[in-house]
Protein backbone atom coordinates (compact mmCIF):
# COMPACT_ATOMS: atom_id res chain seq x y z
CA UNK A 1 0.00 0.00 0.00
CA UNK A 2 1.47 3.36 -0.90
CA UNK A 3 1.80 5.76 2.05
CA UNK A 4 -0.45 8.29 0.34
CA UNK A 5 -3.18 5.75 -0.42
CA UNK A 6 -6.35 7.24 1.13
CA UNK A 7 -8.35 5.04 3.53
CA UNK A 8 -11.45 5.43 1.41
CA UNK A 9 -11.61 6.16 -2.33
CA UNK A 10 -15.16 7.23 -2.94
CA UNK A 11 -14.67 7.10 -6.70
CA UNK A 12 -13.90 3.35 -6.42
CA UNK A 13 -17.12 2.84 -4.48
CA UNK A 14 -19.09 4.81 -7.06
CA UNK A 15 -17.61 2.79 -9.91
CA UNK A 16 -18.24 -0.57 -8.23
CA UNK A 17 -21.75 -0.11 -6.88
CA UNK A 18 -23.03 -2.96 -9.04
CA UNK A 19 -20.58 -5.49 -7.68
CA UNK A 20 -21.04 -4.23 -4.12
CA UNK A 21 -24.78 -4.80 -4.42
CA UNK A 22 -24.20 -8.26 -5.84
CA UNK A 23 -21.86 -9.20 -2.95
CA UNK A 24 -24.37 -7.90 -0.40
CA UNK A 25 -27.00 -10.14 -2.03
CA UNK A 26 -24.65 -13.12 -1.97
CA UNK A 27 -23.85 -12.44 1.69
CA UNK A 28 -27.56 -12.33 2.55
CA UNK A 29 -28.37 -15.51 0.65
CA UNK A 30 -25.49 -17.42 2.27
CA UNK A 31 -26.71 -16.24 5.69
CA UNK A 32 -30.35 -17.07 5.03
CA UNK A 33 -29.51 -20.56 3.74
CA UNK A 34 -27.27 -21.29 6.75
CA UNK A 35 -29.70 -20.00 9.37
CA UNK A 36 -32.68 -21.58 7.57
CA UNK A 37 -31.14 -25.05 7.36
CA UNK A 38 -29.68 -24.64 10.84
CA UNK A 39 -33.13 -23.77 12.20
CA UNK A 40 -34.81 -26.80 10.63
CA UNK A 41 -32.12 -29.15 11.97
CA UNK A 42 -32.14 -27.50 15.40
CA UNK A 43 -35.92 -27.62 15.61
CA UNK A 44 -35.91 -31.34 14.83
CA UNK A 45 -33.13 -31.89 17.39
CA UNK A 46 -34.99 -29.90 20.05
CA UNK A 47 -38.18 -31.90 19.49
CA UNK A 48 -36.19 -35.13 19.60
CA UNK A 49 -34.62 -34.05 22.91
CA UNK A 50 -38.08 -33.33 24.34
CA UNK A 51 -39.18 -36.79 23.31
CA UNK A 52 -36.00 -38.62 24.37
CA UNK A 53 -34.41 -36.70 27.27
CA UNK A 54 -31.18 -38.68 27.17
CA UNK A 55 -30.35 -37.10 23.79
CA UNK A 56 -29.82 -33.68 25.43
CA UNK A 57 -26.29 -34.39 26.67
CA UNK A 58 -24.84 -35.79 23.43
CA UNK A 59 -26.56 -33.24 21.14
CA UNK A 60 -25.41 -30.25 23.20
CA UNK A 61 -21.90 -31.71 23.60
CA UNK A 62 -21.45 -32.29 19.86
CA UNK A 63 -22.84 -28.89 18.89
CA UNK A 64 -20.67 -27.33 21.62
CA UNK A 65 -17.52 -28.90 20.20
CA UNK A 66 -18.46 -27.83 16.66
CA UNK A 67 -19.02 -24.32 17.99
CA UNK A 68 -15.56 -24.23 19.57
CA UNK A 69 -13.66 -25.27 16.43
CA UNK A 70 -12.27 -22.13 14.74
CA UNK A 71 -14.07 -21.45 11.48
CA UNK A 72 -10.94 -21.63 9.33
CA UNK A 73 -10.20 -25.03 10.88
CA UNK A 74 -13.68 -26.33 10.14
CA UNK A 75 -13.54 -25.08 6.54
CA UNK A 76 -10.15 -26.77 6.21
CA UNK A 77 -11.52 -30.10 7.43
CA UNK A 78 -14.30 -29.89 4.84
CA UNK A 79 -12.13 -28.97 1.85
CA UNK A 80 -10.87 -32.54 1.22
CA UNK A 81 -14.50 -33.73 1.17
CA UNK A 82 -16.52 -31.00 -0.50
CA UNK A 83 -13.75 -28.84 -1.94
CA UNK A 84 -13.34 -25.06 -2.06
CA UNK A 85 -17.06 -24.79 -2.57
CA UNK A 86 -20.20 -23.11 -1.35
CA UNK A 87 -21.19 -26.51 0.10
CA UNK A 88 -18.15 -26.53 2.43
CA UNK A 89 -18.96 -22.97 3.44
CA UNK A 90 -22.61 -23.73 4.18
CA UNK A 91 -21.92 -26.94 6.11
CA UNK A 92 -19.59 -25.03 8.43
CA UNK A 93 -21.96 -22.07 8.76
CA UNK A 94 -24.90 -24.35 9.55
CA UNK A 95 -22.92 -26.24 12.17
CA UNK A 96 -22.15 -22.97 13.98
CA UNK A 97 -25.86 -22.13 14.30
CA UNK A 98 -26.81 -25.42 15.98
CA UNK A 99 -25.65 -24.81 19.56
CA UNK A 100 -27.45 -21.51 20.02
CA UNK A 101 -30.59 -22.50 18.13
CA UNK A 102 -31.05 -25.86 19.87
CA UNK A 103 -30.49 -24.26 23.27
CA UNK A 104 -32.92 -21.43 22.64
CA UNK A 105 -35.63 -23.54 21.00
CA UNK A 106 -35.46 -25.92 23.96
CA UNK A 107 -35.46 -23.08 26.48
CA UNK A 108 -38.40 -21.48 24.64
CA UNK A 109 -40.49 -24.65 24.71
CA UNK A 110 -39.56 -25.26 28.36
CA UNK A 111 -40.74 -21.75 29.21
CA UNK A 112 -44.36 -22.76 28.56
CA UNK A 113 -46.09 -22.99 31.97
CA UNK A 114 -47.11 -26.57 32.79
CA UNK A 115 -50.71 -25.56 33.52
CA UNK A 116 -51.01 -24.04 30.03
CA UNK A 117 -49.90 -27.30 28.41
CA UNK A 118 -52.21 -29.27 30.70
CA UNK A 119 -55.16 -27.03 29.89
CA UNK A 120 -54.50 -27.66 26.19
CA UNK A 121 -54.38 -31.41 26.81
CA UNK A 122 -57.66 -31.15 28.75
CA UNK A 123 -59.25 -29.30 25.85
CA UNK A 124 -58.40 -32.23 23.59
CA UNK A 125 -55.44 -30.80 21.64
CA UNK A 126 -53.28 -33.44 19.99
CA UNK A 127 -49.55 -33.14 20.72
CA UNK A 128 -48.88 -31.51 17.31
CA UNK A 129 -51.77 -29.06 17.69
CA UNK A 130 -50.52 -28.21 21.15
CA UNK A 131 -47.02 -27.57 19.84
CA UNK A 132 -48.18 -25.44 16.92
CA UNK A 133 -51.04 -23.49 18.49
CA UNK A 134 -50.05 -23.19 22.14
CA UNK A 135 -46.41 -23.83 22.87
CA UNK A 136 -44.68 -22.27 19.87
CA UNK A 137 -46.41 -18.88 20.18
CA UNK A 138 -45.42 -18.71 23.85
CA UNK A 139 -41.86 -19.73 22.97
CA UNK A 140 -41.46 -17.14 20.19
CA UNK A 141 -39.50 -14.49 22.13
CA UNK A 142 -36.82 -16.92 23.33
CA UNK A 143 -36.61 -18.67 19.95
CA UNK A 144 -36.30 -15.38 18.08
CA UNK A 145 -33.59 -14.29 20.54
CA UNK A 146 -31.64 -17.37 19.46
CA UNK A 147 -32.27 -16.72 15.77
CA UNK A 148 -31.00 -13.16 16.21
CA UNK A 149 -27.74 -14.32 17.79
CA UNK A 150 -27.29 -17.04 15.16
CA UNK A 151 -27.98 -14.61 12.31
CA UNK A 152 -25.63 -11.88 13.54
CA UNK A 153 -22.92 -14.48 14.15
CA UNK A 154 -23.40 -16.07 10.73
CA UNK A 155 -23.17 -12.71 8.96
CA UNK A 156 -19.75 -12.23 10.55
CA UNK A 157 -18.61 -15.76 9.70
CA UNK A 158 -19.64 -15.50 6.05
CA UNK A 159 -16.74 -13.06 5.59
CA UNK A 160 -14.30 -15.84 6.57
CA UNK A 161 -15.59 -18.08 3.76
CA UNK A 162 -13.73 -15.73 1.40
CA UNK A 163 -10.62 -17.70 2.39
CA UNK A 164 -12.08 -20.74 0.64
CA UNK A 165 -13.18 -18.84 -2.43
CA UNK A 166 -16.71 -17.83 -1.34
CA UNK A 167 -17.41 -15.02 1.02
CA UNK A 168 -19.97 -12.38 0.01
CA UNK A 169 -18.58 -9.14 1.45
CA UNK A 170 -15.54 -11.04 2.74
CA UNK A 171 -14.36 -11.06 -0.88
CA UNK A 172 -13.81 -7.32 -0.62
CA UNK A 173 -12.05 -7.61 2.76
CA UNK A 174 -9.64 -10.41 1.80
CA UNK A 175 -9.27 -10.71 -1.95
CA UNK A 176 -9.50 -7.06 -2.99
CA UNK A 177 -8.53 -5.42 0.31
CA UNK A 178 -5.89 -7.34 2.23
CA UNK A 179 -4.27 -9.26 -0.63
CA UNK A 180 -4.00 -6.19 -2.88
CA UNK A 181 -3.47 -3.69 -0.04
CA UNK A 182 -6.50 -1.64 -0.90
CA UNK A 183 -8.06 -0.13 2.27
CA UNK A 184 -11.21 1.11 0.54
CA UNK A 185 -12.34 -2.44 -0.20
CA UNK A 186 -11.60 -3.54 3.39
CA UNK A 187 -13.74 -0.75 4.81
CA UNK A 188 -16.56 -1.32 2.32
CA UNK A 189 -16.61 -5.06 3.08
CA UNK A 190 -16.29 -4.79 6.87
CA UNK A 191 -18.59 -1.77 7.17
CA UNK A 192 -21.37 -3.31 5.10
CA UNK A 193 -21.02 -6.60 6.96
CA UNK A 194 -21.51 -4.83 10.30
CA UNK A 195 -24.40 -2.80 8.86
CA UNK A 196 -26.01 -5.99 7.54
CA UNK A 197 -25.75 -7.58 11.00
CA UNK A 198 -27.43 -4.60 12.65
CA UNK A 199 -30.20 -4.41 10.04
CA UNK A 200 -30.85 -8.16 10.27
CA UNK A 201 -31.02 -7.91 14.06
CA UNK A 202 -33.58 -5.10 13.90
CA UNK A 203 -35.59 -6.91 11.20
CA UNK A 204 -35.82 -10.01 13.42
CA UNK A 205 -36.90 -7.87 16.37
CA UNK A 206 -39.67 -6.46 14.17
CA UNK A 207 -40.59 -10.00 13.11
CA UNK A 208 -40.89 -10.98 16.76
CA UNK A 209 -43.17 -8.02 17.45
CA UNK A 210 -45.28 -9.08 14.47
CA UNK A 211 -45.47 -12.69 15.65
CA UNK A 212 -46.51 -11.75 19.19
CA UNK A 213 -49.12 -8.99 18.83
CA UNK A 214 -50.51 -9.81 22.29
CA UNK A 215 -47.23 -8.74 23.92
CA UNK A 216 -47.65 -5.29 22.41
CA UNK A 217 -51.34 -5.11 23.35
CA UNK A 218 -50.49 -5.98 26.94
CA UNK A 219 -47.74 -3.40 26.87
CA UNK A 220 -50.11 -0.56 25.98
CA UNK A 221 -52.95 -1.75 28.22
CA UNK A 222 -50.80 -2.31 31.26
Amino acid sequence: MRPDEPLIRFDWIARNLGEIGQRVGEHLVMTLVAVGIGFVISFALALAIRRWRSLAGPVLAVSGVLYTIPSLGLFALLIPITGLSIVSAEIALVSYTLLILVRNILAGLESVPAEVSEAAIGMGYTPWQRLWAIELPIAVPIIVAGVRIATVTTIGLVTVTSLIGQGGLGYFIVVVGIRQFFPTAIYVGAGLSIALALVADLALLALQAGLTPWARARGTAG
Partner: protein
Amino acid sequence: MDFLGAGIAWLTDAAQWSGAEGIPNRIWEHVLISGIPLIAALLVAVPVGLYIGHTGRGALFAVSLGNIGRALPSLGILGIVLPLTLPLTAGTDIPLGLPPTLVALFALAIPPIVTNAYVGLREIDRDLVEAGRGMGMRESQLLTQVELPLALPVILAGVRTSAVQVVATATLGAVLGIGGLGRYILDGISQNDDGQLVGGALLVALLAIITELIFAGLQRASVSRGLQPQRRAFELAGQAPGPPA
Protein backbone atom coordinates in the same frame (compact mmCIF):
# COMPACT_ATOMS: atom_id res chain seq x y z
CA MET B 1 -11.41 -40.81 4.98
CA ASP B 2 -8.14 -40.58 3.00
CA PHE B 3 -7.71 -36.98 4.04
CA LEU B 4 -7.70 -37.87 7.75
CA GLY B 5 -4.95 -40.38 7.04
CA ALA B 6 -3.05 -37.69 5.14
CA GLY B 7 -3.48 -35.30 8.06
CA ILE B 8 -2.29 -37.84 10.59
CA ALA B 9 0.65 -38.82 8.38
CA TRP B 10 1.60 -35.15 8.19
CA LEU B 11 1.23 -34.71 11.96
CA THR B 12 3.38 -37.75 12.75
CA ASP B 13 6.13 -36.90 10.25
CA ALA B 14 9.24 -36.03 12.29
CA ALA B 15 10.05 -33.28 9.78
CA GLN B 16 7.08 -31.24 11.07
CA TRP B 17 8.32 -31.25 14.64
CA SER B 18 11.41 -29.04 14.44
CA GLY B 19 12.52 -25.66 13.15
CA ALA B 20 10.82 -22.29 12.75
CA GLU B 21 8.01 -23.76 10.67
CA GLY B 22 7.69 -26.83 12.86
CA ILE B 23 4.60 -27.59 14.91
CA PRO B 24 6.08 -26.76 18.37
CA ASN B 25 7.18 -23.33 17.20
CA ARG B 26 3.86 -22.64 15.44
CA ILE B 27 1.95 -23.62 18.58
CA TRP B 28 4.19 -21.35 20.64
CA GLU B 29 3.59 -18.49 18.18
CA HIS B 30 -0.13 -19.13 18.35
CA VAL B 31 -0.12 -19.10 22.16
CA LEU B 32 1.89 -15.84 22.22
CA ILE B 33 -0.27 -14.14 19.60
CA SER B 34 -3.36 -15.10 21.64
CA GLY B 35 -1.95 -14.72 25.15
CA ILE B 36 -0.51 -11.21 24.91
CA PRO B 37 -3.73 -9.50 23.77
CA LEU B 38 -5.80 -11.61 26.18
CA ILE B 39 -3.70 -10.52 29.17
CA ALA B 40 -3.79 -6.91 27.99
CA ALA B 41 -7.57 -7.13 27.63
CA LEU B 42 -7.88 -8.59 31.15
CA LEU B 43 -5.90 -5.68 32.59
CA VAL B 44 -8.31 -3.20 30.98
CA ALA B 45 -11.63 -5.03 31.00
CA VAL B 46 -11.70 -6.48 34.53
CA PRO B 47 -11.27 -3.11 36.33
CA VAL B 48 -13.79 -1.45 33.99
CA GLY B 49 -16.34 -4.25 34.47
CA LEU B 50 -15.84 -4.29 38.24
CA TYR B 51 -16.23 -0.51 38.42
CA ILE B 52 -19.46 -0.61 36.42
CA GLY B 53 -20.77 -3.56 38.41
CA HIS B 54 -19.87 -2.09 41.81
CA THR B 55 -21.16 1.42 41.18
CA GLY B 56 -23.91 0.66 38.67
CA ARG B 57 -22.60 3.58 36.59
CA GLY B 58 -22.31 2.86 32.87
CA ALA B 59 -24.52 -0.25 32.97
CA LEU B 60 -25.95 0.51 29.53
CA PHE B 61 -22.39 0.77 28.21
CA ALA B 62 -21.48 -2.67 29.61
CA VAL B 63 -24.54 -4.32 28.08
CA SER B 64 -24.33 -2.67 24.67
CA LEU B 65 -20.59 -3.39 24.48
CA GLY B 66 -21.46 -7.09 24.65
CA ASN B 67 -24.02 -6.79 21.87
CA ILE B 68 -21.75 -4.73 19.62
CA GLY B 69 -18.90 -7.19 20.20
CA ARG B 70 -21.06 -9.89 18.69
CA ALA B 71 -21.80 -7.93 15.53
CA LEU B 72 -18.14 -7.19 14.76
CA PRO B 73 -16.82 -9.81 12.34
CA SER B 74 -13.38 -10.95 13.53
CA LEU B 75 -11.95 -10.90 10.02
CA GLY B 76 -13.44 -7.43 9.55
CA ILE B 77 -11.62 -6.08 12.62
CA LEU B 78 -8.31 -7.50 11.39
CA GLY B 79 -8.87 -5.77 8.06
CA ILE B 80 -10.04 -2.50 9.58
CA VAL B 81 -6.94 -2.21 11.77
CA LEU B 82 -4.42 -3.17 9.07
CA PRO B 83 -4.32 0.13 7.13
CA LEU B 84 -4.17 2.08 10.40
CA THR B 85 -1.08 0.29 11.75
CA LEU B 86 0.78 0.10 8.45
CA PRO B 87 2.67 3.39 9.07
CA LEU B 88 3.96 1.89 12.35
CA THR B 89 5.58 -1.08 10.69
CA ALA B 90 6.83 0.65 7.53
CA GLY B 91 10.62 0.48 7.42
CA THR B 92 10.90 -1.73 10.51
CA ASP B 93 11.46 -5.46 10.98
CA ILE B 94 8.05 -5.91 12.58
CA PRO B 95 5.85 -8.08 10.34
CA LEU B 96 3.12 -5.82 8.98
CA GLY B 97 0.44 -8.30 10.01
CA LEU B 98 1.45 -8.46 13.67
CA PRO B 99 0.16 -5.15 15.11
CA PRO B 100 -3.30 -5.42 13.49
CA THR B 101 -3.66 -9.00 14.72
CA LEU B 102 -2.72 -8.08 18.29
CA VAL B 103 -4.96 -4.99 18.27
CA ALA B 104 -7.90 -6.89 16.78
CA LEU B 105 -7.60 -9.74 19.27
CA PHE B 106 -7.33 -7.24 22.14
CA ALA B 107 -10.50 -5.50 20.92
CA LEU B 108 -12.36 -8.80 20.51
CA ALA B 109 -11.42 -9.99 24.00
CA ILE B 110 -12.71 -6.94 25.87
CA PRO B 111 -16.53 -7.06 25.50
CA PRO B 112 -17.23 -10.51 27.00
CA ILE B 113 -15.01 -9.78 30.02
CA VAL B 114 -16.52 -6.35 30.73
CA THR B 115 -20.09 -7.61 30.28
CA ASN B 116 -19.57 -10.67 32.49
CA ALA B 117 -17.74 -8.75 35.23
CA TYR B 118 -20.66 -6.33 35.29
CA VAL B 119 -23.32 -9.06 35.23
CA GLY B 120 -21.42 -11.13 37.82
CA LEU B 121 -21.42 -8.26 40.31
CA ARG B 122 -25.02 -7.26 39.58
CA GLU B 123 -26.34 -10.79 40.09
CA ILE B 124 -25.02 -10.97 43.66
CA ASP B 125 -27.70 -11.01 46.31
CA ARG B 126 -27.79 -7.37 47.47
CA ASP B 127 -28.49 -8.51 51.05
CA LEU B 128 -24.99 -10.02 51.22
CA VAL B 129 -23.39 -6.75 50.19
CA GLU B 130 -25.55 -4.78 52.62
CA ALA B 131 -24.67 -7.24 55.40
CA GLY B 132 -21.00 -6.59 54.69
CA ARG B 133 -21.64 -2.87 54.74
CA GLY B 134 -23.52 -3.23 58.05
CA MET B 135 -20.50 -5.06 59.48
CA GLY B 136 -18.49 -1.93 58.79
CA MET B 137 -16.66 -3.06 55.63
CA ARG B 138 -15.22 -0.33 53.47
CA GLU B 139 -16.18 -0.18 49.77
CA SER B 140 -12.83 -1.68 48.78
CA GLN B 141 -13.31 -4.52 51.28
CA LEU B 142 -16.81 -5.16 49.98
CA LEU B 143 -15.43 -5.42 46.47
CA THR B 144 -12.50 -7.71 47.25
CA GLN B 145 -13.98 -9.84 50.06
CA VAL B 146 -17.66 -10.12 49.17
CA GLU B 147 -18.38 -9.21 45.57
CA LEU B 148 -15.29 -10.54 43.83
CA PRO B 149 -15.33 -14.06 45.33
CA LEU B 150 -19.04 -14.42 44.64
CA ALA B 151 -18.81 -13.08 41.09
CA LEU B 152 -15.62 -14.91 40.15
CA PRO B 153 -17.26 -17.84 38.31
CA VAL B 154 -19.28 -15.47 36.12
CA ILE B 155 -16.25 -13.25 35.48
CA LEU B 156 -14.20 -16.30 34.51
CA ALA B 157 -17.00 -17.41 32.18
CA GLY B 158 -16.41 -14.15 30.31
CA VAL B 159 -12.66 -14.74 30.28
CA ARG B 160 -13.29 -18.23 28.91
CA THR B 161 -15.47 -16.85 26.10
CA SER B 162 -12.78 -14.31 25.24
CA ALA B 163 -9.94 -16.81 25.42
CA VAL B 164 -11.61 -19.30 23.09
CA GLN B 165 -12.54 -16.54 20.68
CA VAL B 166 -9.02 -15.09 20.70
CA VAL B 167 -7.38 -18.47 20.09
CA ALA B 168 -9.80 -19.10 17.22
CA THR B 169 -9.34 -15.67 15.67
CA ALA B 170 -5.55 -15.82 16.00
CA THR B 171 -5.82 -18.44 13.25
CA LEU B 172 -6.92 -15.66 10.91
CA GLY B 173 -3.69 -13.76 11.57
CA ALA B 174 -2.21 -16.01 8.89
CA VAL B 175 -4.27 -14.06 6.35
CA LEU B 176 -2.04 -11.08 7.17
CA GLY B 177 1.05 -13.23 6.74
CA ILE B 178 2.02 -13.88 10.35
CA GLY B 179 2.74 -17.23 12.03
CA GLY B 180 0.64 -19.39 14.29
CA LEU B 181 -1.32 -22.49 13.32
CA GLY B 182 -3.44 -20.75 10.68
CA ARG B 183 -0.31 -20.72 8.50
CA TYR B 184 -0.64 -24.48 7.90
CA ILE B 185 -4.24 -24.15 6.77
CA LEU B 186 -3.67 -21.28 4.35
CA ASP B 187 -0.47 -22.89 3.01
CA GLY B 188 -2.31 -26.20 2.74
CA ILE B 189 -5.00 -24.52 0.63
CA SER B 190 -2.59 -22.65 -1.63
CA GLN B 191 -0.24 -25.62 -2.06
CA ASN B 192 -3.09 -28.09 -2.48
CA ASP B 193 -1.57 -30.12 0.34
CA ASP B 194 -4.33 -32.05 2.13
CA GLY B 195 -1.95 -33.41 4.76
CA GLN B 196 -0.85 -29.96 5.89
CA LEU B 197 -4.39 -28.59 5.56
CA VAL B 198 -6.04 -31.28 7.66
CA GLY B 199 -3.13 -31.61 10.10
CA GLY B 200 -3.23 -27.84 10.68
CA ALA B 201 -7.00 -27.88 11.10
CA LEU B 202 -6.80 -30.68 13.67
CA LEU B 203 -4.15 -28.74 15.62
CA VAL B 204 -6.23 -25.56 15.56
CA ALA B 205 -9.35 -27.38 16.68
CA LEU B 206 -7.45 -29.16 19.43
CA LEU B 207 -5.88 -25.95 20.74
CA ALA B 208 -9.31 -24.25 20.86
CA ILE B 209 -10.89 -27.18 22.68
CA ILE B 210 -7.99 -27.41 25.17
CA THR B 211 -8.33 -23.67 25.84
CA GLU B 212 -12.05 -24.15 26.46
CA LEU B 213 -11.40 -27.04 28.86
CA ILE B 214 -8.69 -25.19 30.80
CA PHE B 215 -10.87 -22.15 31.35
CA ALA B 216 -13.94 -24.28 32.12
CA GLY B 217 -11.86 -26.01 34.80
CA LEU B 218 -10.72 -22.66 36.23
CA GLN B 219 -14.30 -21.47 36.25
CA ARG B 220 -15.48 -24.55 38.12
CA ALA B 221 -12.64 -24.34 40.64
CA SER B 222 -13.43 -20.67 41.31
CA VAL B 223 -16.80 -21.22 42.92
CA SER B 224 -16.36 -20.01 46.49
CA ARG B 225 -16.02 -22.93 48.93
CA GLY B 226 -19.04 -21.80 50.90
CA LEU B 227 -21.11 -22.18 47.75
CA GLN B 228 -19.85 -25.54 46.55
CA PRO B 229 -23.22 -27.30 46.94
CA GLN B 230 -24.65 -24.78 44.50
CA ARG B 231 -22.01 -25.50 41.90
CA ARG B 232 -24.43 -27.28 39.62
CA ALA B 233 -26.81 -24.37 39.70
CA PHE B 234 -24.00 -22.15 38.45
CA GLU B 235 -23.21 -24.48 35.60
CA LEU B 236 -26.80 -24.84 34.51
CA ALA B 237 -27.19 -21.08 34.47
CA GLY B 238 -24.36 -21.01 31.88
CA GLN B 239 -23.98 -17.88 29.82
CA ALA B 240 -24.76 -17.64 26.17
CA PRO B 241 -21.47 -18.49 24.47
CA GLY B 242 -19.61 -15.85 22.51
CA PRO B 243 -19.59 -15.95 18.74
CA PRO B 244 -17.32 -18.45 17.04
CA ALA B 245 -14.50 -16.85 15.11
